[in-house]
């Protein structure tokens, strides 16, 4: 059975899980312009951007020979939980009669999950499945830890592109060398060696800028649809951390709450003051993470949302009040296939100028320091990065 899946974040995890269980995996291609075009062409016009990208991904994976698609379902009023139904129909309309195996949340539909589970389990023993899950679970934590290091250190890399190359190598390492849960530690050590060998600039602690990214999970997690926003921000000299990571998602969505040690429960509590109830999607998480990033001393927040995403639009309307009260700047970007790079670049640059001037003004309580001085200090630091020759 040739299996494929949607492309989101560190996809080698899904690949690994299926491979350990002896399935033949058709790796979906990383979303590109072509994927967007296919998705936009065949999806309902008013569906959100992630649904369209995934449609495109499915078509490309099926063209590559996939027979079965595996995806997650989920719950809540956001349409994401219903994606697979729509996708099945869209694919049927263009002539693909393939099965989509859905994993809903365990607490929603136990028996459906069970039946999906047995399809994936195939002839493997329970012990083997347990080991496979354990391996991938450990791997997700390990990879996310490393990715956080990358998006932190890349801001200060001496030679542009070194960390991005290293990150790609690290993912290959995990792909080629991890087969059991014991392998994870060994490979992790190797990965850290790789990261530590990269030269970085020394920047005084008080001049470091940290940006938190919040928003809808797909556009936050998948760099190919958010124009590599983390890398772009890093190249402008700031550290980045996201609200969503795959390990967190697994912990929160797939692990029964009794056993889950998810950080997300705490995040949701932090959101209570601004948004009492869950309104679907990741709106409450977005709000909670803004508070969390603020508590952790981040300097600015960027909210990413698919164009027209209702939960995130609600979050966006709460943001001005939060931003005012907490005193942390927030930039909202809405993403779809129409988005222009130049416009985003300009807004990111201006936003970082704003974040920096606010930060440096706070440090200089005398308030004598002018906008000119601040901009200039940053200019000097960024001089080489803006491609002035």
């Amino acid at each position: 059975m040739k299996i494929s899946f949607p492309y989101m974040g560190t996809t080698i995890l899904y690949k690994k899980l299926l491979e350990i269980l002896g399935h033949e995996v058709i790796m979906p291609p990383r979303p590109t312009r072509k994927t967007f075009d296919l998705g936009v062409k065949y999806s309902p016009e008013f569906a959100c951007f992630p649904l369209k990208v995934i449609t495109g991904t499915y078509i490309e994976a099926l063209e590559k020979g996939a027979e079965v698609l595996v995806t997650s379902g989920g719950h809540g009023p956001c349409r994401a939980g219903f994606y697979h139904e729509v996708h099945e129909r869209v694919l049927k309309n263009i002539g693909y009669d393939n099965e989509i195996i859905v994993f809903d949340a365990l607490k929603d539909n136990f028996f459906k999950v069970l039946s999906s589970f047995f399809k994936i389990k195939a002839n493997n023993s329970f012990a083997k499945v347990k080991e496979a899950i354990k391996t991938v679970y450990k791997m997700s934590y390990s990879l996310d830890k490393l990715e956080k290091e990358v998006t932190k250190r890349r801001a200060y890399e001496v030679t542009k592109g070194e960390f991005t190359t290293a990150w790609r190598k690290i993912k290959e390492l995990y792909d080629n060398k991890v087969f059991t849960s014991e392998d994870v530690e060994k490979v992790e050590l190797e990965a850290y060696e790789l990261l530590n060998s990269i030269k970085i600039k020394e920047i005084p602690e008080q001049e470091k800028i940290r940006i938190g990214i919040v928003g809808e999970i797909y556009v936050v997690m998948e760099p190919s649809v958010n124009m590599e926003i983390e890398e772009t921000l890093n190249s402008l000299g700031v550290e980045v951390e996201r609200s969503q990571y795959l390990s967190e998602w697994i912990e929160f969505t797939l692990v029964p709450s009794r056993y889950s040690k998810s950080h997300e429960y705490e995040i949701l509590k932090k959101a209570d003051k601004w948004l009492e109830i869950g309104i679907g999607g990741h709106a409450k998480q977005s709000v909670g993470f803004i508070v969390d990033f603020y508590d952790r001393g981040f300097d600015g927040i960027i909210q990413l949302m698919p164009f027209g995403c209702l939960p995130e639009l609600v979050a966006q309307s709460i943001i001005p009040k939060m931003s005012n009260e907490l005193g942390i700047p927030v930039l909202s970007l809405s993403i779809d296939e129409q988005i222009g790079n130049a416009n985003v670049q300009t807004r990111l640059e201006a936003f970082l100028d704003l974040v920096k001037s606010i930060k440096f003004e706070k440090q200089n309580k005398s308030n004598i320091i002018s906008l000119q001085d601040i901009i200039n200090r940053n200019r000097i630091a960024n001089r080489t990065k803006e491609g002035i020759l």
Partner: protein
Amino acid sequence: MKSIFLGIDVGSVSMNIVAIDDNAEVIFDLYTRTNGQPLEVIKKGLFQLRDVLPSTYKVAGVGTTGSGRQLAGVMVGADIVKNEITAHAMATTFFIPNARTIFEIGGQDSKLIILENGIVTDFAMNTVCAAGTGSFLDHQSERLGVPIEEFGDLALTAKRNVRIAGRCTVFAESDMIAKQQYGFSKPEIINGLCEALVRNYINNLGRGKRLQPPYVFQGGVAANKGIKAAFEREINDKVIVPKYYNVMGAVGVALLAREYIKETGYQSNFRGHEAVELDFEPSAFECSGCSNYCEVIKVEVNNKTVAMWGDRCGKWTNSIGQVG
């Protein structure tokens, strides 16, 4: 030898050059339409500047801004390349230090900048649509057969108010024709258009933001008295249009260049008026190194590549090596 600092703002509709002296006095300012040929216009502008300036002046620093800032930066040898939001804020706080709200309307984008103690604390920029920008008015002026320069004065003579749907340039036309049938005069229609633009602007950009006086209105569209009046009616307060309203971006980046050079003591990278005559040939190609398919921009002079950008991995940018 006196030092001057240049600011060049390459926008979608206009290209502006400003020269300031050591004391930040504006000694030269030029606003020209690009007509889709930014490089040619920059060349002409720099020659114009050379002809006007006495030979005792020396260019000590250059900054570029606007959507064409990178290419212009390579062409003239800029010391700093800055986004237009920061540049505009810089200029405004220089002339009007206590400004709290900046309305900036250019050819294809409009910005709203909120300041506190001279520091930008919030901003908004139009994203998906150019309704509420200069181009919208340009199109309507063509349709009505009224030169854009006369728009503002005509709008002020309107006797009645008429509401025109201004969200979409295309639908605005059908609405305009409908309103003409109702017997509204040209000035009234024009005034309606000005109000539609302001309404769009406030609805799109001002959403959720607290606007506080003093208000400053700049950008090419600030030449239009009708829009200024419409803003004043909308916010119920006085709106200041600064003297160099149409070249504020260029002024801002010239100020930034001046500060930058003063602080670092660097020599300017300025290529000189003559060097600009070299043939700069920008071209773009799609890199096939990975699935990103980045659109890489390459600038050549005499078949020699002088600059490349647009690649995510730095493969091409780094291939030029350290220049300047």
